[in-house]
């Protein structure tokens, strides 16, 4: 099962490698990992998307909690939550593709950030599935480059994750 795990940790050098090292040493999957400081610069917030059986996910949460720099861990997938990912995609936009790509970007609520004679660079946010859908929807051969951030997540409603 796919899980999205949120981690609050000390913003210290080396903390990231402890987390990624834990995943590789114990053979856990990382589908994506995002991290950046929070409004309190002494803390970072990390989102990891992983897959595993319930037992594995339980171990992942426990092992993460064991890391000295980790302040809190929640499995966002245990309750309702929001997740978003950002993608920048550069496409070849010439001839009839040019209009078509503009229309597709509009349908997916994307924004064209950069335009040249031959290319568009489009920004899209949404769930991973939506970004996948966009890639599926356009002609494969027009894609020049994609870059995705991996998912960030937050709980719905009043639930908060704080130190």
């Amino acid at each position, binding site marked *: 099962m796919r899980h999205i795990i949120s981690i609050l940790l000390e913003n210290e050098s080396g903390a990231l490698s402890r987390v990624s*090292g834990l995943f590789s040493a114990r053979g856990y999957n990382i589908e994506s990992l995002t991290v950046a400081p929070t409004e309190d610069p002494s803390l970072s917030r990390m989102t990891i998307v992983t897959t595993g059986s319930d037992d594995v996910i339980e171990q992942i949460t426990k092992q993460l909690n064991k890391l000295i720099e980790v302040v809190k861990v929640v499995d966002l997938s245990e309750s309702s939550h929001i997740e978003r990912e950002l993608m920048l995609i550069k496409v070849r936009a010439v001839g009839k593709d040019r209009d078509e790509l503009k229309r597709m970007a509009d349908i997916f609520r994307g924004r064209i950030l950069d335009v040249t004679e031959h290319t568009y660079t489009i920004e899209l946010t949404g769930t991973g599935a939506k970004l996948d859908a966009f890639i599926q929807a356009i002609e494969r051969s027009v894609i020049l480059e994609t870059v995705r951030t991996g998912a960030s997540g937050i709980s719905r409603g009043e639930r908060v994750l704080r130190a």
Partner: protein
Amino acid sequence: MELSGAEILIRCLQEEGVECVFGYPGGAVLFIYDALFKQDKVKHILVRHEQGASHAADGYSRASNKTGVCLVTSGPGVTNAVTGIATAYMDSIPMVIITGQVPTHAIGQDAFQEVDAVGITRPCVKHNILVKDVRELASAVKKAFHIARSGRPGPVLIDIPKDVTAASCKFEFPESISMRSYNPVIKGHPGQIKKAAQLLLEAKRPMIYTGGGVILSEAAAQLTKLVKMLGYPCTNTLMGLGGFPGSDAHFLGMLGMHGTYQANMAMQHCDVLLAVGARFDDRVIGNPQHFGEVPRKIIHIDIDPSSISKRVKVDVPIVGNVREVLGDLVKVLETNREKHDAKALKAWWAQIELWKAKDCLRYDRASKIIKPQFVVEKLYEVTKGDAIIVSDVGQHQMWTAQFYKFDKPRRWINSGGLGTMGFGLPAAMGAQIANPKATVTCVTGEASFQMCLQELSTCKQYRLPIKIVCLNNRYMGMVRQWQQFFHGNRYSESYMDALPDFVALVQSYGHSGIRIENPADVEPALKDAFKRKDELVFLDFITDQSENVFPMVPGGMGISEMILAEEL
């Protein structure tokens, strides 16, 4: 007044009550050695190889419950120490490792003797810290000691660049430490403890299985009280020996791959299992599927939540310090008016007696060649069961665990988790230094011993009167045993050829040695050696080459699927 980083480090060690540091100097730690030279509170033990430093600090900690400290230089100093760090990590031993590092401006430049110490050791320490500013040094040291000995203990490494040891600042030792990200649970949940008590009383076939957590948390008294008040059978893991008196009638012996028949059978067939400070690892319960085939309720007490329900699902998890939780559990049971089912318990003990009657540790006592088991039995008698026994890794380790009855904690010191050959001698040095008056014995094999024998020189320098019992079978015995059982008797590279004359070898280091070849000479030789209180004596017992450790649970099999001696 301002102090240099090196002086601050030494002052911090003094404040932490460190009496002794095991180390080896080099370029990156010269300022620290200079600061050591100028004081006399912290003693330094000069080892002969950094692996010896980390094992000695580890042995010191295991034998005393004080935090062991070792100090090594950057680069090869660190890499040599890694085996000892990983050994301590696997057995949750509180230890602080101080490593020198190249100056901060040189980090990342492939400088002379630079290695990424924090990176290399990350997977085998509880935590590690690179100190980049002298003003952070004191709090880093405080933190390191706090983390090493609280919660589930473990080694913590502090990497200090040379310029940080030279720079100076005002010294203030932090009185206390608080970390928002690290607050281990100590007290067990009262509701869970009540549930555990209830389950224990309802048991028809109870079993108490305890591990290294009992030793580490100093809970032997609480455990002994609990077992005796309930009258239930008890077994210890390799790491837990001495947590419950080995000579007590409730003790079924060690369990696991080389556990006794009765301990393994009782473990498999119990209906309520109390697991205390143990982690159901592969060498203990064998195949978890096979273990799970028999329905039973499991109560698991451990300080580390990640040890609970890792390999085996448990019914009543209790996270907390083992001593605290056992103390609370005893209290609940004392005030509880219900009693356990005496009739069922009697029948259970009768079953256990039948298992015991297999006499699974039987060996040929009439042998004309020295049997290794016989040596350990005699060692037990001659030392009256009261020595600190430090073991290396192999068959000799298992025979010692089986035949020496440990009645007290911290008398049995061995590398259980990592299984590190070479651990014995340096760890025995640490144990002897922690307990100068105690009788310390290193039980070893001729292969293990050759992995750290340079420490004989350290033993001479500091007059450490360790007795070394070498069970010399001219084989990497444990490897040979596996090759005999599982690889068609093909003894690939497990014969120890070109052995030194150990007696002459130890003599060249200024110690004495005795070679023993006849069973009749075993006891006199041991008596002779242990009479020589101030000397290191090496006893080279020439033992039966073909002896195997029984019972044995082959890898991947169930715990009750043992090979017994007579079956071969």
